[in-house]
């Protein structure tokens, strides 16, 4: 008995390939077909055996690593709405309410992003790359759950078109497309992106307004940690993630689970993640040891820097994007460490942009080719010349 879906694709094949009527739309047909059925062409050039890993599998692992963050983000959104409403809701209700907020953002992100991908693929006549599977999920996770959907659509459009397609598509982009989209929204619509994120309750019931952890500062000689504790951001809460913030970034624990999945499967390069964490810890310790700034983030110490804000999310999922990160191993160490360093410096030195990690990653994305260039130069000089 033939699979009916398979039959459908076999029946429609003549329309979309060769001299078919809809030949132009072959990328769309192909993307749909290969989503359901793993292509298995015969090899005609050496080597005649190939590894089973392909780009679909590669990107699926990233999606898998993002699942804990996504589910926790949905749950936490509902939980925060509950707190906003002054009630403590059961788990299912938290999930349902959270899904009510988060799912539309994810759906809009995928729908609008894929529309652009299809458009460019059809125009250019190449197949649709799987890279967007990840971008389309990463982007909503960096947004506050209260963001208007039209902004989501605008942001993902900017990310996909300006961040990726104008450079030639997946594999050729300089910046991480999801972060490009977020940066666009951050600078264009600062009100909905930052500061008082949790106005969510406003739409539902009269809720409280709270600031994200990074915008907290100690006032009147109060130390930063004490101020954070007063604002409901104890270290434990920042680690588990039951705090307001962007959908995916609040839980350090879930980000770490994702990071471990990515490192064990070697989809993400551990050098970026470890280098990034090391850079952040070292820099925050140095900043901590510099006298003064008791009430600002300079005195928060490495653990708070690690758990608050989107650092772990960024370093695990954004910085490890292989395309926009350096392609050489020494380059990856430097890249990661520089992101950690810059994150702390931006948080401490420029409180106007509390979320330092986004800018740090984008900044280092720009320098990734330069890092590669230097490493390649050095490596070439070490080889016995063979020309």
């Amino acid at each position, binding site marked *: 008995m033939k699979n009916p879906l398979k039959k459908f694709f076999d029946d429609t094949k003549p329309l979309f390939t060769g001299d078919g009527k809809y030949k132009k739309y072959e990328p769309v047909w192909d993307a749909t077909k290969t989503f359901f059925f793993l292509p298995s062409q*015969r090899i005609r050039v050496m080597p005649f055996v190939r590894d089973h890993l392909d780009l679909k599998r590669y990107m699926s692992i990233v999606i898998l690593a993002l699942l804990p963050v996504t589910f926790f983000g949905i749950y936490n959104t509902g939980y925060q709405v509950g707190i906003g409403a002054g009630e403590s809701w059961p788990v299912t209700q938290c999930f349902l309410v959270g899904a009510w907020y988060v799912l539309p953002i994810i759906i809009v992100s995928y729908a609008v992003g894929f529309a652009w991908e299809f458009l460019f693929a059809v125009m250019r006549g190449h197949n649709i790359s799987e890279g967007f599977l990840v971008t389309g999920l990463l982007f909503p996770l960096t947004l506050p759950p209260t963001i208007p959907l039209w902004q989501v659509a605008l942001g993902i459009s900017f990310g996909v078109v300006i961040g990726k397609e104008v450079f030639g598509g997946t594999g050729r982009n300089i910046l991480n497309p999801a972060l490009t989209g977020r940066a666009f929204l951050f600078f264009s619509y600062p009100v909905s992106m930052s500061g008082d994120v949790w106005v969510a309750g406003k739409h539902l019931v009269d809720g409280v307004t709270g600031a994200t952890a990074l915008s907290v500062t100690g006032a009147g000689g109060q130390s930063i940690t004490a101020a954070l504790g007063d604002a409901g951001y104890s270290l434990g809460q920042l680690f588990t993630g039951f705090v307001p913030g962007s959908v995916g970034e609040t839980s350090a624990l879930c980000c770490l689970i994702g990071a471990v999945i990515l490192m064990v499967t070697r989809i993400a390069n551990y050098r970026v993640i470890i280098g990034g964490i090391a850079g952040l810890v070292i820099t925050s310790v140095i900043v901590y040891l510099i006298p003064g700034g008791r009430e600002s983030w300079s005195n928060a110490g490495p653990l708070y820097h690690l758990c608050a804000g989107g650092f772990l999310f960024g370093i695990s999922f954004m910085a490890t994007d292989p395309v926009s990160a350096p*392609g050489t191993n020494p380059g990856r160490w430097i890249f990661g460490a520089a992101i950690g360093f810059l994150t702390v410096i931006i948080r401490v030195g420029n409180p106007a942009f509390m979320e330092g990690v986004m800018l740090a990653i984008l900044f280092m994305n720009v320098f990734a080719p330069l890092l590669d260039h230097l490493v390649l130069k050095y490596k070439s000089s070490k080889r016995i010349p063979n020309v």
Partner: protein
Amino acid sequence: MKTLKISRGFNLNVAEQPDLNCAHLALPSSLGCCAGDIPHIRPKLLVKEGQRVKTGDALFTDKRDTTIEYVSPGTGLVEKVLYGHRRRLMEVVIATESEDEYVEYDPVDLDGITGMPRDALVTVLKKGGLWQGLRQFPALDFADPEHSPALIIVVMDGNDLFSPRPEIILEDNIIAFEAGMAILRRFSNKLAVVCRESSLEGIREQGSSVADQITHAAPDIYPAWHPGAVLYQIKQQVAENSAWCIRLDHLVMMGRFLLSGRYPVEKIVTITRPGEQRPHMQVRQGMPLSALIGEMPGNSIVTTGRFNGRVLEKDAHIGFFENTVNIIEAGPEEEMFGFARPGLNKPTVSSTFLSSLFIRRPANMDCSLHGEARACINCSYCERICPNDLMPSFIMKSLHAGELEDALALGLMDCCRCGLCSFACPSKIELTQILSDAMDAYYKDKQ
């Protein structure tokens, strides 16, 4: 003996190890002399269809050096001459007679080889159709007799995971091996004899002088024993970039040829197929594929090295440089949601399938691409597996950008064409082919 420290490469458990017995196959009705598998050759045909040739008669030569001859592996009439794409000579097929008639040369003994003038030695080897067994880096063209190589590498094992074992090739051929080594010593005083660790035991058991001459042991990680990988590991100076290399079976052939004065027609081949364990086979040079494997299994391809051989069509003959035949079957049909399956039965060098987490079960390699071509995403899987510390993705990008100098600086000419970068690439980019073509183009340009 030194052990080479090569840790990058392919070390999955592939269960197609041939049996260590050796079966003899009868003389087939046709033998072929292949030009298709010879790198860089510009063949010039020397015979006509219908002409009778003796074993050892020249069939074609190379326009670039017409003193190098490619000789007939059998006696009989030239049955047909096969051309490939753009009328490139592919094969000369001989309809064999049951009795061989040899072109005879004067036998030389071991002392004779040491005493022979170098030019005379080169001439007789060229005439005998064996000089081309010696290859010269970096492009692995035939060795230039004018050149004095800083190093000659003798590799005991072939290009595939399951190429014939050296102890079987060496059986009864120890003196020929010694003669071959004596020939090499005429050309260079630095010889590196490299053997896979798993083959060492068998050679030691023979109790001959061969074991003492092995200078390097290569780990059992493909392609640690390839001449290109070995050269990269042991080279210390620029002069060694144009080293020579020779495979054990060709070395033994050279020795036998000089000692007997006749073209040595025997050859050991292995045939691998998933789930089967066939014995080694002693066959003739230029054996037709049909006589080796019988009926061609449907839906599969036959290659002469799963990573870096060529595809054999069903009427093809085994070439001079080929001694392994892999039957690689097609994979399963297009799997539904194939990308999301746990993948217990999917061998991979990555860590993205469950098969890589548990005890490595024998991997069933098939000839499917397992995906579609995509843009390079800079994942470095190619770099991680390259035995020669190249960064194939960066070299590929330099080549696409037309920056040949950059590609060369990144070590393009150190590529040993093992095929692993293409094997591992999740974007299914034909890296090996791109690098290999660029190497050949550069080499041709420089000539």
